[in-house]
């Protein structure tokens, strides 16, 4: 970690976004994670994505559980609402936040321990319920805070720092998210912001459950030879299938691509999600196909990255529940307690 405070002074010509803010206005406190931790790159990607989308930083709810990953909400969007919850319980808290105020952008940050072990049940159900949120897992395959035990996402045969191989099969959170109905599923790598930032932007703009599994190497305990979650391993075995690019509705769409390799999807707000297919055999709208593709590649030792699946028209939790237009926290006592006459009418409808 760093003891020196990050100077407030910024580059004099840093670009300003549509609401007059620079990237620096989306930052948080200086990270206390280890130097070189992938999680800090994930935080930086969130900062960059939010700044480029010109989202107002105070309209976010950022929630986390416990672990290295779950410290990171302190390190981005310092102007937003934050909640550092109990281990594995980020999904419950963010569900509450989203139900109460659907106008907030919900960002949940979790880790492989927080989501794939103690919080597995919570993870499964928040995906099932299709809360409108960005669910980021900082996945390093190890318990960094307790000095490097294998986590549940660690690959079979991947070795510890001391050379001991892992004996158990991994949980693939992206595959589970696909199975349980997430309408946006992606995998990326903290060391590749060029892929990660557009994915984050698309995910933030996606209406519904957007899940991103970010392989984020632990420099202290899982960045050695024999690890399948190291910077070097991902650089050699990461296989990008679909690059995503988020294009705002006012931005010019250029057309310099090979026919058939690009697909544009119009987002609910009129902006465009552009997908560049790097493997023409891959269809990001085919949930079942995606699952088998990921598993087949995994057997070959490859890590499939990019936008794995998207359904831009899927309903989110509020649509499923058919809640009122107005966020619930803005409803007045008058709205919530309409009086005896209304109650009588409701009761009458059940008779």
């Amino acid at each position, binding site marked *: *970690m*760093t*003891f*020196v*405070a*990050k*100077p*407030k*002074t*910024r*580059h*004099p*010509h*840093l*670009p300003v976004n549509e609401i007059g803010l620079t*990237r*620096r206005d989306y930052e948080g406190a*200086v*990270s206390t994670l*280890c*130097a*070189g*931790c*992938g999680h*800090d*790159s994930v*935080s*930086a990607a969130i900062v960059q994505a939010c700044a480029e989308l010109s989202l107002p930083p105070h309209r976010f709810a950022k929630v986390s559980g416990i672990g290295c990953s779950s410290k990171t909400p302190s390190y981005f969007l310092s102007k937003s609402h934050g909640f550092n919850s109990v281990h594995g319980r980020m999904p419950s808290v963010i569900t509450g936040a989203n139900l109460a105020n659907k106008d907030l952008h919900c960002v949940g940050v979790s880790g492989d321990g927080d989501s794939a072990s103690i919080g597995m049940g919570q993870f499964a159900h928040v995906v099932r319920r299709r809360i409108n949120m960005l669910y980021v897992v900082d996945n390093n395959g190890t318990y960094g805070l307790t000095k490097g035990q294998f986590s549940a996402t660690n690959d079979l045969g991947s070795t510890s720092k001391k050379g001991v191989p892992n004996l158990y099969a991994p949980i693939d959170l992206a595959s589970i998210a696909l199975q349980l109905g997430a309408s946006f599923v992606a995998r990326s790598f*903290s*060391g590749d*912001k060029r892929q990660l930032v557009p994915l984050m932007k698309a995910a933030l703009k996606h209406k519904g459950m957007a899940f991103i599994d970010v392989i984020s*190497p632990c*420099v202290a305990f899982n*960045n050695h030879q024999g690890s399948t979650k190291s*910077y*070097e391993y991902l*650089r050699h075995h990461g296989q990008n299938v679909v690059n995503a690019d988020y294009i705002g509705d006012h931005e010019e769409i250029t057309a310099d691509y090979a026919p058939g390799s690009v697909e544009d999807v119009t987002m609910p707000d009129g902006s465009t999600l552009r997908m560049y297919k790097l493997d023409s055999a891959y269809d990001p709208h085919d949930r079942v196909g995606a699952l088998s593709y990921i598993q087949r590649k995994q057997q070959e030792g490859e890590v499939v990255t990019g936008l794995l699946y998207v359904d831009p028209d899927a309903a989110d939790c509020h649509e499923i529940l058919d809640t009122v237009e107005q966020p619930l926290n803005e409803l007045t006592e008058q709205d919530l307690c309409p009086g005896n006459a209304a109650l009588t009418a409701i009761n009458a409808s059940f008779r």
Partner: protein
Amino acid sequence: MQPTDIESPGYFHKVVDCQWACPAHTPVPEYIRLIAQERYTEAYMLNWDSNVFPGILGRTCDRPCEPACRRVRTEEKPVAICRLKRVAADNKGDIGAYMPRVPSQKNGKRIALIGAGPASLAVARDLLPLGYEVHLFEKDPYGGGMMRSQIPAFRLPVEVLDEEVDQILNMGVVCHFGQEITSMKDMLDQDFDAYFVGTGAPRGRDLELPGRQEVDAHIHIGIDWLASVAFGHTDKIEGKVIVMGGGNTAMDCCRTSLRLGAESVTVVVRSAFEVMKASEWEKEDAMREGIPIINNRPPKEFVHENGKLKGVVFACVEPVEEDGRLKYVPSGEPDVFIEADHILMAIGQDNHCPWIERDVGIEFDKWDCPVLDEVSLQTTNPKVFFGGDSAFGPENIIWASAHAHQAAISIHLFCQGKDLHKNRPPEGVNLISTKMGVHEWAYDSEHDPSARRVVPLVEQETALNNVKVEVELGFDQTLGAEEAQRCLNCDVQTVFTESLCIECDACVDICPMDCISFVENAEEEVLRNTLMAPADNLEQDLYVSQDLPTKRVMVKDEDVCLHCGLCAERCPTNAWDMQRSVIHIPQLGSFAE
């Protein structure tokens, strides 16, 4: 772009903007750190080594370093470098032990230095420790040259001047003071091994306008008048005074007049305020003392009656920008008349060597300047060297020191029969890691965002009553220590080792100034626009690494780096290190054994 060669001494030298801009290449950040550590004597000696006159320059320097200071680009106001230099000078202890030893056994070579100004004194200082016998010739009875005759005592107290001049004279200079040299031929006949001419730019310009001759008694050439004040021949000026000119001499003239009893003082300048030659702070000092500066008024005529000056008529012009240059055109306003009893003419000065016969092998060009080799400062007569204002026209003290170091090297090489170009010692750079622990650095890396400290002044009434009372009180130790913290330590360099980098982006994410990018290599123009923040200051270099495993390169824009060391703190593999660069500027001391 090609990978940056950081072993070339010029690369990191240029990053230290202040040192790069200083003609004598004073290692500014290093002496500021010494001040912060209250090691004033060492800070003073580091200065003395480079610029020879720290106490004098700490009060009078033209400060080319300050506009160059990186803080101008990252915040607004530069570090008060000049005033910190004075802090070192004011608080130093006994420097005796640090002075170079002058051998009692001489090396048999005799050198004549003509004119006892800063250039000659600095040459003497460089030559004496190598055993040269140095003879110094000066028409005035004291050493110091223009530092004594042209800089008023309220800016540079005589004691400060004497101390630093005597430091050099006491090293064993043979002084021939109070005798004017009137013939170079005679000098050459004395058969010295080499000659150095440092006679400055002693001729103040005059203005031939209608009425000039009739009112001669009321018109004074600025630098001559200042000299007569400095030497005590003039102690008052009465009535209304007009100072003509917009340079530092004009500012000294008007402020001196005010102190010598002038009823009113007005500075009239032919050009616009912004382009006046005077330093910003000297203009401010004059205006603070209530002296009006009137711009865009070229003089037309001296008005007189019965042989007595009545005033001056000025035309009115306005500046118009044409092809990036200012041109002055009549503004259409009627001419103005300003009353005056005295006029001080401070419109420039020239070097002037009527005492050098034109048949002694020293060629002069059409502007009457000596023809010099720009590196060695040698004239067409191989035995004769020039430096200071007499070399290329009026500059300032810090340039005189810089010339002197070069001339001293040339004289030494010449006396050894060596080539003045090929045998010059090269510049060098040493890089020393400042890493002391995981998060400990041998310099104060934390960024101090505070504003430039304001220098305390003596009460104005006291100042204006006595021409010898120094106006600026200087920073005390507390203010000096505070101001020292503003220095960004630009000499502690960000050094990148490609083979250690794992491309984790930690440095990119933490850099407060978005200086660092990992991108595909390209031509410079393209690269400058693909970085985290646009690199639009073309005067500042890009530091480009070798190819990394992902076929990208690390590009660092040096422009606004705060040298806070966060990239190195966040680097998990020490691919970034903060290394102090020590730039070796050759001086004659480099030859000493």
